[in-house]
């Protein structure tokens, strides 16, 4: 009863990084609430292959559902697992990735349990709440903090009366870390037939094709990001060159992606990847709120812009007033000279 649950999503027998990030966050919340952290994983032939990817993140109890038809993911069987397990276990908080799977599964589960769900949270905190109308006081609620209205406002959402309090979080927003403290690490191999009826397998996956990520933007120590100010797809070539010499990755603002200068999977911001590099070099990026939300936690921010009033300059540590065409080749040149 009353524990924190994290749904772990998998590709084959590999646990998604976002799930591990949520386990780390879930552990913190569980410690704050003085309850246990429980995890759920469902797939096919996963027994013995996924436990070690989940338990080290501070899990007290892991529920494994291993049966034919549970991978690739389809909506109804996974919904049945969560709904029936939650009815039995009565968690107070349930977290999952704001991925295609999490955003397919979360709403279906919340509808079935009539519990509130907040999508794409960027922060999760524990706090108190007083209902403005009734004056009823609630303690230790989950504050689900998310941007809204295209990123122009940030809203704090609470679910005072319904459990579990459900939230999805995008990949890269939380940081994963192996848990050093003590936890029970118990594993339960659940009897799938008790949770899922044979009729649940109505949707058949005929073909499932996933390509390995072409880059590691999310984990990069140095990010060179280009905006609409790069002017063209060719303009991005020099950013790839700079990223190469610095051993970094190339990212882009939404405006640059929309203009076709760069692939969508390199988009940084609220609707893209969130990055936490040591150095973020913003090239020709004006700095819309929705972009800044995805990179503001960078240690050092360097902005190269010919507009001294570009909003991103306000949060930059170094502002270079100049055109990218002039400055980026110089960065490459002097890095090569000085790093020898």
């Amino acid at each position: 009863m009353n524990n924190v649950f994290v749904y772990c999503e998998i590709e084959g027998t590999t646990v998604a990084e976002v799930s591990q990030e949520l386990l780390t966050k879930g552990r913190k919340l569980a410690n704050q609430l003085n309850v246990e952290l429980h995890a759920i994983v469902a797939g096919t032939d996963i027994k013995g292959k996924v436990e070690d990817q989940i338990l080290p993140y501070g899990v007290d109890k892991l529920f494994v559902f291993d049966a034919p038809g549970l991978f690739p993911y389809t909506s109804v069987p996974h919904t049945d697992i969560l709904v029936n397990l939650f009815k039995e276990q009565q968690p107070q908080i349930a977290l999952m990735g704001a991925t295609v799977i999490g955003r397919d599964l979360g709403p279906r589960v919340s509808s079935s349990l009539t519990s509130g769900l907040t999508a794409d949270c960027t922060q999760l905190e524990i706090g108190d709440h007083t209902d403005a109308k009734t004056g009823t006081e609630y303690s230790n609620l989950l504050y689900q903090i998310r941007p809204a209205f295209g990123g122009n406002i940030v809203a704090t959402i609470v679910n005072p009366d319904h459990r579990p309090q459900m939230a999805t979080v995008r990949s890269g927003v939380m940081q994963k870390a192996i848990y050093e403290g003590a936890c029970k690490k118990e594993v339960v191999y659940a009897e799938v037939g008790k949770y899922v009826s044979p009729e649940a397998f109505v949707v058949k996956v005929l073909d499932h094709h996933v390509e390995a990520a072409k880059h590691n933007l999310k984990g990069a120590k140095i990010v060179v990001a280009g905006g609409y100010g790069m002017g063209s797809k060719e303009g991005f070539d020099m950013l790839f060159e700079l990223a190469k010499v610095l051993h970094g990755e190339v990212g882009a603002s939404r405006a640059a992606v929309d203009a076709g200068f760069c692939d969508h999977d390199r988009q940084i911001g609220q609707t893209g990847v969130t990055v936490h590099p040591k150095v973020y070099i913003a090239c020709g990026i004006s700095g819309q709120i929705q972009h800044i939300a995805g990179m503001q936690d960078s240690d050092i921010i360097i902005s190269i812009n010919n507009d001294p009033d570009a909003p991103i300059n306000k949060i930059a540590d170094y502002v270079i007033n100049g055109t990218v065409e002039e400055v980026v080749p110089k960065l490459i040149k002097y890095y090569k000279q000085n790093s020898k």
Partner: protein
Amino acid sequence: MSLKIVVLAKQVPDTRNVGKDAMKADGTINRAALPAIFNPEDLNALEQALRLKDTFPGSTVTLLTMGPGRAAEIIREGLFRGADGGYVLTDRAFAGADTLATSYAIATAIRKIGEYDIILGGRQAIDGDTAQVGPQVAEKLGLPQVTYAEEIISLDEKTRKVVIRRHIDGGVETVEAPLPLVVTVNGSAAPCRPRNAKLVQKYKRALGAQEKAAITKDGAALPYAELYEQRSYLNLVEWTAADVNADLEQCGLNGSPTKVKTVQNIVFQAKESQTLTSSDADVDGLVKELLDKKIIG
């Protein structure tokens, strides 16, 4: 085989083009400064519906939208592109609904429509970006769902199963699902066809009851009033909570488990920054400084 197709569509403020005047000083949204548009991915869904209608003549496409009276605009836009009719679900009781209460209202309206083989909607609306209402409607109607759809590839008339290509993280998937079914359509699907000139002529004067009331509220006469008696299709249908037999406890703010505690305008902490020029000396100096501090290298 003919299909009964329902398309869920929402009128949304255009959050992609938010100007400086869109936010009020107190951090709330100045809705009047934002144009109301047809939610982009709902247009992708409408296109998939119209393609099914093209493939299976005799099929009907019915739009369903929830919002204020002016959301009848959504129905008109759909009619201009080839939809057969639509309903505006509009009632103060629906105000303040979160996704769960919204899906409840929509599911009850779909039950009122009665016959449906496939329910299509956009993956998500750009004012909330939650992607929750589609799956929640599916659950409430006890139907399977396929989200993030990019194309309805085929529909087998005998088995009544559809094959759909959908986007997944890092790839694509092809799935087969039985009708009736809820499908949410991704923005990467085919764009919606443009308005059809003949249909625009036919439906341009179509109005909902609240729109008519807004025109006549100061005693003005309704232009072409006789047309609305002669051509019933020009009267866009509005449904209230009572019309769809909705339980008021499950509607609007009452039926919403999530509550907005606070809303804040985003203010980023300004840093004390060092300003450099693009001169060789400045760039060289910066690179040396970063290397010395072991920030790069």
